[in-house]
């Protein structure tokens, strides 16, 4: 089942810069797809188009079979998004923020209590939930944003550089959770610069360069016995890898 399908996505910024150019991509349920590219390649722009933050000129994006353009609310209720810099409501306490998210997603009182306790416990955040978010460190905000993304059990998790700012234990917890979510039938699409993490975590990866998808496939298809780093450098140097991969 396709959880994410991007067809010919083109995003042109005002001023004429083509940030994403005819991008096609599919992520099936149960897959973890890494989105890899250099700075300014178009990763965050693609993600912002998927999540409804940015409008796009051409193409179509489907989340769980629903069009982001035609049924934005239905799409948004199926995915959870974690931005690269989690700017959260600093005037709320951690628990107020999570309660707000739970209200918006219509989670029952019993379910939210159980999920918040579980997720916050896993990320060692329970004790801090009564504090204002403004008193949190960057890593704590990141953890809270992750908890907020997980409590409504999304079908698709869209993460922009999710490991930046997390402590080693939280990275491990997040990786385990990502595996568990996928085993339960959801899909994960995340951008990263850390190729080692992507190589060990992802079932497939997509590489983007100057807004164009230059390589995509399973890890075996991309690395061909080598490493993801070698494949990425090859893409960076020659523009694309084996055409069969794309």
């Amino acid at each position, binding site marked *: 089942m396709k959880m994410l399908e991007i067809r010919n996505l083109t995003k042109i910024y005002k*001023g004429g810069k083509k940030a994403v150019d005819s991008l096609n991509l599919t992520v099936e349920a149960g897959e973890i797809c890494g989105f890899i590219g250099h700075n300014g390649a178009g990763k965050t722009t693609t993600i912002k188009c998927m*999540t*409804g933050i940015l409008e796009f000129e051409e193409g179509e994006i489907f989340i769980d079979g629903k069009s982001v353009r035609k049924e934005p609310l239905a799409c*948004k209720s199926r995915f959870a998004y974690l931005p690269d810099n989690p700017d959260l409501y600093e005037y709320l306490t951690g628990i107020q923020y999570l309660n707000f998210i739970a*209200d918006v997603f219509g989670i029952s009182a019993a379910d939210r209590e159980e999920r918040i306790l579980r997720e916050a416990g896993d990320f060692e955040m329970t004790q801090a939930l009564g504090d204002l978010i403004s008193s949190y460190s960057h890593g704590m905000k990141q953890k809270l944003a992750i908890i907020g993304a997980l409590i409504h059990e999304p079908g698709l998790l869209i993460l922009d550089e999710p490991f930046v700012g997390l402590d080693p234990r939280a990275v491990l917890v997040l990786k385990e959770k990502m595996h568990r979510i996928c085993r339960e039938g959801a899909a994960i699409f995340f951008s990263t610069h850390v190729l080692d993490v992507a190589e060990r975590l992802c079932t497939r990866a997509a590489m983007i360069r100057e807004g164009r998808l230059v390589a995509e496939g399973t890890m075996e298809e991309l690395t061909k016995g080598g490493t993801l780093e070698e494949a990425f450098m090859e893409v960076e140097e020659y523009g694309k890898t084996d055409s069969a991969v794309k």
Partner: protein
Amino acid sequence: MGRQILLLSRLSLMNLFGINELLHTKNPAKKWKYLGMGLVYTMVLFVFGGYLALFSYGMIQIGMGELLPMYLYTMVSLVILFFTFLKAGSMIFEPRLFELQIPLPVSTSAIMISRFAASYLMNVLLGFFVMLPGAVVYGIFLPISVSFCTSLLLGMLVLPLLPMTLASVAGAGISAVTARMKHKSLGEAGLMLLFILAICFFPFLLPKDQNITVDLLKPLLLQMTELMGRIYPPSLLFDQAVCGNWLSLFWLTAGSVLISVLFLLGLRRVYPGICRSLAVTSTKNKFCMKKMKRSSVRTAFWKRELRRYFASGIYLVNTVIGYLMMALMALLLLIAGPEKMDAYLPIGGGAVVVMPYIMSFFASVTTTTACSVSMEGKNWWIMQTLPVSAGDVMKGKLLLNLTVAAPFYAVAGICTWIAVKPDPVQGILMLLLPAAYIMFTAVAGLSVNLLFPVFNWESETRVVKQSASVMVTMIVGMVSVVIPVICLFTIKNAVPEILMGINGAVLLILTVILYVRNSRITLQKIK
């Protein structure tokens, strides 16, 4: 240190009114938006300047031209005192900027002085814009000398120093007191409101033997300016200086500079402490999960808006002041009795007719919605990615405004009702008209903010006080009240109840149109 102050002041000024973004943005839509805002500011300045020129001309025509310099000087000082006070906490003691600047190899004094300097430059400009039209009219109709021009120029340069110092002392005091409080913003807002009310109602507290009569405009103005000189001696010094008294000019200049320097020297010791304590947030040692409750989306948004509102002192003070004045005016009417108001009104009906418009005026000058979208700031992505419609987001913002306005409206309504004892029709209209204005201004404020949103801000002052949306909403609110009032006073044999009814109906239609439009907006397009 001079270079450091210069660099930091330049940095502060670059961020004012989004000038830097206008110069460097590659987004043509944003450029047009900023140009539109610039146009609004220019128009406001021209209207204000025109009003002051006319006022000055009027003063000269009734033979009171000599009082003009003193009068304008005091007015500008009061305006600066008022606005600097509201900004002092967020501009001079802004903890976020302090955190950004303190790791740089610059002295704490340089940071403090640069912020004071940036504020000073803005106030000098404000002073010029207010004083200049009056000075030009004065120059055209009355003989002027070299001493007049010199004193005017020097006076305008030193004018902001004293009110700024006074406002900063109050701001520093409030920041120091509230820094230790658990609910800093609420404490800060409360003290700020007290200070503002003290400024507004100070003339009422003066002893009765001042014998201010309002029988004639001329003696009233004479006594007012005399009073100004006693309350605020620099205005008297300025008045004497423009008349050729060089010693007064010296005392005015030296006194203003000296007091400001002494203030800055004193503040230097406590400045870092105040900034740091404002940034510190308390943390609890243990958190115990309580039984959770599920709320509807609308309630969740309303609660979030309420928390946002009470977390920001500057947001609260700047948006509640109109409603507070509305309630206080009604209370004043109840205490003083409607007969005093009736005696000065040129139309029949008196307080019962005018009071709904006075209430409506105060209800229209401030609204929480005019900067509520901008206040989302860097959190706007959350609204854009949650599965909620624009209507839900907007309803939350409107509900907040109604929640804030409701208690003040209730007090104002009850007090006015008891004071003027209207008949049933008048009573209903008296309550409905201000209510219609509260709703209209809330919806209009939201519409304007959706047109001119500013998300990229470091300090809340940028959106609460310096944004075009707040200014445009204020103008729209004022104009919407002034037009029917003009009709009321100018249309012969007009039945006030019918005019009020038409007024309310027009407002209702406009409110519905804007509400529907706001609810259908695409959140992605708001950036």
